């Protein structure tokens, strides 16, 4: 067995062990039912990795296995993004609506850009996957920009899923971008790195999903407030402060 193959086997089985641990904890810690899409994704990756490193594949067969697995995992990954969005904004209907509007706008823009850019070059599965991952990255960035802007508190479980998953998307976007640009020379590095990168995400997931932690409930959930009045007050106060800055003497 070559050094590379040995490395892939070791990191592959390490990933499998961490995935098994994650799924066992999901059942014991009662988080499986709370995040069904995330655990479907984890289960699929477990089966895919175990099969991938157990069988001695021919190059063609492995190519088909790899790309089929990559696409199923990409679709399940979109499900994870959806689950993060749903859980984080569950108690924030207004922010959810804003996020939905912004995301719809992004999808329309991406659709327009794709339609305009069609036929620019030969079709490449790698480039398509890179583009889908890029859109996913933008969606996650918008979602967490809103979370930061509205100071939405995150529960430990969903925060953990988000950290690990965003890390995975970031490394994926990075790898796909480089692979598309540099070509096959980059695959050597990518093959060695990908399992280790995924292992980092798995360690984060195992630590944060060890047991179920409920989402924090906003303490002002039941407080009756007139949104229009509250917003008008805030806008007026900010405008007053701005005027105060420009005309400190009241002129």
């Amino acid at each position, binding site marked *: 067995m070559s050094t590379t193959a040995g490395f892939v086997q070791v990191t592959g089985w390490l990933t499998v062990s961490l995935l098994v641990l994650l799924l066992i904890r999901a059942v014991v810690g009662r988080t499986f039912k709370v995040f069904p899409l995330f655990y479907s994704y984890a289960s699929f990756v477990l089966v895919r990795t175990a099969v991938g490193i157990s069988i001695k594949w021919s190059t063609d067969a492995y190519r088909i296995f790899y790309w089929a697995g990559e696409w199923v995992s990409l679709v399940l990954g979109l499900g994870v993004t959806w689950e993060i969005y749903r859980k984080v904004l569950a108690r*924030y209907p207004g922010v959810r609506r804003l996020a939905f509007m912004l995301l719809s706008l992004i999808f329309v823009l991406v659709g327009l850009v794709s339609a305009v850019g069609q036929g620019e070059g030969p079709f490449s599965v790698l480039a398509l996957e890179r583009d889908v991952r890029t859109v996913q990255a933008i969606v996650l960035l918008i979602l*967490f920009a809103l979370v930061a802007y509205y100071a939405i508190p995150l529960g430990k479980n969903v925060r953990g899923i988000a950290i690990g998953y965003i890390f995975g998307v970031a490394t994926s976007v990075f790898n796909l971008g480089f692979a598309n640009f540099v070509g096959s020379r980059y695959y050597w590095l990518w093959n060695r790195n990908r399992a280790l990168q995924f292992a980092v995400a798995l360690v984060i997931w195992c630590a944060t999903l060890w047991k179920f932690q409920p989402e924090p409930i906003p303490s002002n959930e039941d407080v009756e407030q007139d949104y229009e009045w509250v917003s008008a007050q805030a806008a007026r106060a900010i405008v007053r402060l701005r005027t105060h800055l420009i005309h400190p003497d009241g002129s």
Partner: protein
Amino acid sequence: MTHLVLIIALACTLLLLVGFLLRDALGGRGRRHISAAAPSYGEIPSRALMDRIFAEDDFSFVAGEGTKQIRRQFLGDRRKLALAWLSQTKGQATAILRSHLTAVGTLDLQPATELKLLGHAILFFGVYAVLRVLVGFYGAFWARSFVKNVLTLAGRLSGLGGSILADAGRTGLQVARSQGHA
């Protein structure tokens, strides 16, 4: 190449986000307090204080009576005071915005209203940043007179614009009348 740079920038932004989330998870900034009450808009820093910081009488007096060293110290102190006043005002604006955002998160938000507020906030922080740079680099008095000049100029331009529009309206009306349309 541009494409690759954009993708790397996106990946780095995501990694930064991971860093922020990790920092919060490890207790760096912990959970923010969410007020159960209606947002409060506090007190705006005193105008009288700012009048005093920028008072040109004081500067004229020190410039006329004091030595060069005293004048320099006076200007340095006023700069520090002006920066402190600016920071206090910014702190107040941040508190207002934070208070509003935590209060309305669970309500039925109107995108147009939120965008308008965001616009006001961006404008405020823009003005703050410009003033901070001006005071930091050129001192409180120069910044004050610069802002006054800009405002005077803006007022004149606005007046000029109004006169031009009024003239154009009158001319248009006269032309229309002469052609029998009005």
